């Protein structure tokens, strides 16, 4: 990507004002003293290419009033009625477009970026018809008419899908990638790629680095993310099917055994048993149906002989049935009492679990406070008395309690094991309650049926009918029950089919997970990272980094930032103040690391053997920051101008000192942009 030129046009009552500059294909230096409008130019450029979020805002808000309200020229205050910015871009296939975006306009929204084909600024080509594109609306990176989608296509970038912190995935938005290409001066030099706008992308900085270096991690990451989401869905499906099946079965007093509460790839439907549970034994339903049919036949025979049998037989049967009914009622009573007890203790366990969780939460707070306290130099955080500095017990009531006390970590572990124990207990209890409920429902149905039968028998005895209503009633009951169970059998096999399918999906998921590479990085990724490290060290050396031994700095594989013995290298705050402010402060040493990092990203990506995705442009606003040695600035500019395919635009004040500027740019090939007085002038 090459930024060819920029133009700002402000319409005023005194005619058009503004500025227009052409950038070199290599190094361009924008020189200007403080408050001369250097950053205005820089931010207008970012705004013009739709990257103003890097400055920390959306839309024209990030621009100073001088380009949208009024400015002073020839000691006159000139009001702006409308203003717009043009930027000319070229992609790596030589295609040129001109972008136009309004800053202040009655008609055009600042979310609109008009794209014109051709080089309008450098060749005066006609503007022609615009393709309107929009930004900052949902879908701006995905929809065809979205500006960032256009820019991505134009630059030939293909930004990958990445995981979000809150689950789900999104694109690695172009703005996050540009945060490693354009560094504004306020917050930009506080960290490696400091200005990534917030989109909830997980480890955004690492992802941007991985993308620019062209590492192959994205496919794996996304695949892993999908597998995780699938696993959750599989678990849920299994539970839903299992619950439905149990509910259906309970309805007809049948129990399904051999299905675990959680999905397992080893699920074997042959091990599932569908049984009828009576007092102590459980019989498979096929056998149970046979039993019912047998009883039915016996009843039919009885019905035939009924008219011949005496009332004594009926009375005998009535006695027998009454006794059975009593037994069933007692069982029902007992089962319902035990269910109530089980439910009560389940509730108790749940309360205990809730309390344990709250306790655990409090202990974690205490643990965090220890860290926080240590940061604020509170002596108690390290277990020492603030007055006498002796070590003390970590409890307020040490004088009142005898015996040893748990320390915080032991306490947390203890509560955690309690929590796990309670959770297991609750899971077991829930299963027991569910079994009891089934059993109870089963008993209730049988009590009701027996009750009906007995009443019918009583009727038979008292009115001496020639046909037994009791027998008929029992026969009807059997017919209904058999029909219901047979229907259930069909349903069960349908449910089992679904469970088999879920188990198959789980097995596939597990196989796919096994096939994922064990390490985050492949061999070629590691080669790239090691090249990146080499480049980084070389750069840091030429910039004169001296807070640590450069050969000991490593690029961490965890987050791809420079580290020294596992610690991320950041600003090192030294206690003793240096006598000479011009001499190196450690803050500027950290800035050197940021330079090295940004440049190494490009260098690694530009290597033909390890081609990455860097668009080949670097925009740096005031990279010198506070009083950087001019030799270091020189080294930076030299390296930048030496990169033949890198366009770099550097805005700097060079400490408002001619000799610093001379020293920093000595013998280099660059294009200089500077102006006298104010940036905005008649066009």
């Amino acid at each position, binding site marked *: 990507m090459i930024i060819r030129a920029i133009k700002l046009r402000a319409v005023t009552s005194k005619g058009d004002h503004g500025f227009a500059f052409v950038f070199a294909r290599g190094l361009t230096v924008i020189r200007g003293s403080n408050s001369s409008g250097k950053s205005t130019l820089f931010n207008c450029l970012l705004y013009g290419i739709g990257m103003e979020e890097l400055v920390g805002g959306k839309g024209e808000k990030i621009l100073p009033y001088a380009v949208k309200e009024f400015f002073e020229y020839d000691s006159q205050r000139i009001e702006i009625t409308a203003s717009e910015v043009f930027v000319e871009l070229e992609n790596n296939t030589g295609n040129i477009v001109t972008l136009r975006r309004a800053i202040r306009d009655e008609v055009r929204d600042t979310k609109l970026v008009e794209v014109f084909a051709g080089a309008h600024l450098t060749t005066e080509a006609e503007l022609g018809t615009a393709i309107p594109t929009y930004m900052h609306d949902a879908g701006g990176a995905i929809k065809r008419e979205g500006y960032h989608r256009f820019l991505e296509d134009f630059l030939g970038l293909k930004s990958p899908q990445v995981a979000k912190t809150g689950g789900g995935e999104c694109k690695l938005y172009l703005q996050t990638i540009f945060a490693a290409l354009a560094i504004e001066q306020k917050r930009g030099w506080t960290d490696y790629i400091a200005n990534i706008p917030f989109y909830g992308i997980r480890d955004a900085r690492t992802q941007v680095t991985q993308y620019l270096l062209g590492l192959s991690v994205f496919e794996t990451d996304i695949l892993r993310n999908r597998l995780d989401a699938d696993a959750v869905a599989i678990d849920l499906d299994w539970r839903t099917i299992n619950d439905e099946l149990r509910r259906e079965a309970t309805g007809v007093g049948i129990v399904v055994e051999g299905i675990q509460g959680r999905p397992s790839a080893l699920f074997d439907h042959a091990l599932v048993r569908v049984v009828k549970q009576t007092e102590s034994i459980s019989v498979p339903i096929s056998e149970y149906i046979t039993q019912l049919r047998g009883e039915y036949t016996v009843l039919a025979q009885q019905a035939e002989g009924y008219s011949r049998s005496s009332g004594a037989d009926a009375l005998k049967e009535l006695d027998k049935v009454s006794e059975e009914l009593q037994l069933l009622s007692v069982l029902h009573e007992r089962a319902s009492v035990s269910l109530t007890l089980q439910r009560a203790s389940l509730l108790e366990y749940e309360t205990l679990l809730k309390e344990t969780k709250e*306790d655990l939460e409090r202990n974690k*707070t205490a643990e965090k406070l220890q860290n926080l306290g240590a940061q*604020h130099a*509170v002596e108690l955080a390290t277990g020492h008395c603030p007055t006498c500095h002796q070590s003390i017990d*970590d409890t307020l009531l040490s004088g009142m309690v005898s*015996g*040893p006390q*748990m320390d915080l970590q*032991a306490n947390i572990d203890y509560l955690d094991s309690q929590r796990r124990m309670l959770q297991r207990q609750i899971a077991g209890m829930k299963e027991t309650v569910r079994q009891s409920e089934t059993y109870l429902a089963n008993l209730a149905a049988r009590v009701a049926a027996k009750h009906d039968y007995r009443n019918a028998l009583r009727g038979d005895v008292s009115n001496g009918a020639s046909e037994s209503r009791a027998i008929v009633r029992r026969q009807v009951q059997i017919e209904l029950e058999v029909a219901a169970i047979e229907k259930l059998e069909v349903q069960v096999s349908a449910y089992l089919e679904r469970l088999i399918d879920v188990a198959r999906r789980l097995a596939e998921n597990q196989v796919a997970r096994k096939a994922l590479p064990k390490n985050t990085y492949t061999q070629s990724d590691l080669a790239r990272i090691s090249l990146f490290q080499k480049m980084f060290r070389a750069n840091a050396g030429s910039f004169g980094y001296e807070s640590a031994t450069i050969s000991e700095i490593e690029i961490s594989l965890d987050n791809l930032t420079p580290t020294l013995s596992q610690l991320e290298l950041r600003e090192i705050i030294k206690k003793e103040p240096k006598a000479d402010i011009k001499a190196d402060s450690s803050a500027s040493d950290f800035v050197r690391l940021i330079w090295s990092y940004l440049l190494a990203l490009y260098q690694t990506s530009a290597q033909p053997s390890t081609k990455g995705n860097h668009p080949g442009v670097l925009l740096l606003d005031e990279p010198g920051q506070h009083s950087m040695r001019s030799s270091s600035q020189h080294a930076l500019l030299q390296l930048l101008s030496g990169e033949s395919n890198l366009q770099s635009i550097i805005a700097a004040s060079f400490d408002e000192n001619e000799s610093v500027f001379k020293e920093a740019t000595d013998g280099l090939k660059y294009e200089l942009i500077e102006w006298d007085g104010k940036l905005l002038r008649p066009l």
Partner: protein
Amino acid sequence: MTKTKMHLLFQRRPAPVIAEHRPLYKICQFLLVLRMASRSGKSSLPRMHLFNWAFKRRDRSARIIEAAKSKELHITAWGFDPALAIALKYGIAEGLIRTVSTGYELTDRGIDLADAVVKDKDIFGSEKAILISIGKDITEGMVEAVAKDWEVA
């Protein structure tokens, strides 16, 4: 019957400590009370004991939130916890709070730590919720009015 000698060995295991008895926990809890629910970071001792008592149970917290809303304290007595007194002593020794004529006051260091605790969203969730709904509406005057009935006539 033969007599065998039995030896029982007891090994004392450390006992768990409730989190609010950890010195830093209690101190920070009251840095929060002073920062979030007390005028100019000052509070009397009985008033702090009232908060301490209210933090311990949900129904008590509900009662002082109610009191803060109605501007009238209908709680006739509350517990005084030695743990709080010890925590305050530690807090003074650490230079996080200091005694003033009316009770206790946050020092600049105390304010810094309190702000760090306020900023961390993961800690003291329930306490912060209670303190936010109370605001600074439990005044010294309300506490004073109840406490003066305690004195022996």
